[in-house]
Each structure stands twice: as C-alpha cells, then as structure tokens.
C-alpha cells in the first residue's frame, strides 16, 4: 500500500510527533505507516483523512493503482 502522509504532513507543516499526538498514536506508528510497513485500521485512516481534510483514497492507494 502506498501512502502520501508525508506529502500531507509537509502541506500542513506538521512533524510525525505532532501528527501522532493529534491522532493519539505513537510516533513510531506514524513512521511505520509512512514507511509502508504497517497498514492502519479503517478508523485511524478515517481520522487521518478528517485531519488533513481529504478523502482516505487521497492518502492511501493500493500498490497497483
């Protein structure tokens, strides 16, 4: 799964630690998601899309898309 969290973080000018704090997860979890090592739950993906004010599809895409 591909993710554009890093891009949206840059747009909103927030660090991994700040994003982690806002989503109530560890910074390591954000890092693992960005590195493509962990696929977040639907709930976390929805909270992330709400935070960045975009759809889930804009943040996460399947590898073949």
């Amino acid at each position: 799964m591909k993710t554009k969290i890093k891009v949206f973080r840059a747009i909103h000018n927030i660090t991994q630690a700040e994003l982690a704090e806002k989503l109530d997860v560890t910074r390591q979890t954000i890092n693992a998601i960005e590195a493509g090592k962990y696929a977040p739950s639907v709930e976390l993906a929805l909270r992330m899309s709400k935070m960045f004010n975009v759809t889930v599809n804009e943040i996460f895409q399947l590898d073949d898309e």
Partner: protein
Amino acid sequence: MKSIYLFPNKLKIPALVIFIISLTLVILIPFEIVYELRVPVFAIASDHFLSSENSFYLSFGKEDIYNELVDLLFFSSGIILAFSKEKTEDEMIGLIRYKSITNATYFTFTLLIISEFLVFGMPFVYIIMFFYYAFILFLNIFYYTKLFIYKKQFSYENED
C-alpha cells in the same frame, strides 16, 4: 470501537518487580530452596504421593501453601506485565501484543510436542513443570523484544 480490557500503565513497574522476584523463587523451587508455610486451608482434594494418611477431600486441613503463593505472584504479575497499557497504547502495539501471543503459543507447544517424543517417564514431570510456567514467560519475552525492536526500528523520522 470497544477494545479488550488492559490493566493501567502504572501497574507495569510493580508487576515487573514482582515478576522478577517470583520468577527467581520459581527457579529456586526445584533446588529445594523453599520456605514452609503450613496453614489451615479448605481443599477440594489433598492427596500427596506416598503419604496418603494425611489426605483429605472437601474439608479443612493443614497444607504448605508456599508454592501456591509463589505461583499466584508469578502468574498474576506475568499477566499484568503483558496486558497492561503502554504510555501511548495504539493499534500497532495491540498488533504486537497479538503477534506475541500467537508466537508464544506456537513456540511453547512446538517445544512441548518435541519434548513428548524425546523425554519419557519421570523426567517428563519436570518438562510439564517447565511448561506450566513457560507460556507466560515466553509471552513476556516475545512481547517486550518485539516492542523494543519496533521502537528502535521506527524511532528516527524517515526523511528520504
């Protein structure tokens, strides 16, 4: 979404201290380094090998409860240690805990099955005694090792 119950984070350190102490006491039991704590207890069944004159069923009698106290401390602290919240408890840590339970189950029962075919007779009693304590020990070892690797692996911000 409703998640499973986990113990509060503040119990982690006391549980770790009690777990280490009780694990040491458990290791000392086979070397006969034990205290005798004979107290009146109610027992469903108390029947000791080669000393059946002191047996009693569904009644009160005197029993040494040292091993029971050590077991109580070992299992309760081991469970609290493995199932207490981290400072920031999230779904990734939940996944690590779930993976650790799975790995501990596979590992413990693989060793047990191998032991079944390699150890026969009385020595197998010691194997059973080992596995009685092993699962909770392996669970904690797997969980904290995986947690350490996870924290180490993703501790630095990836800025490629």
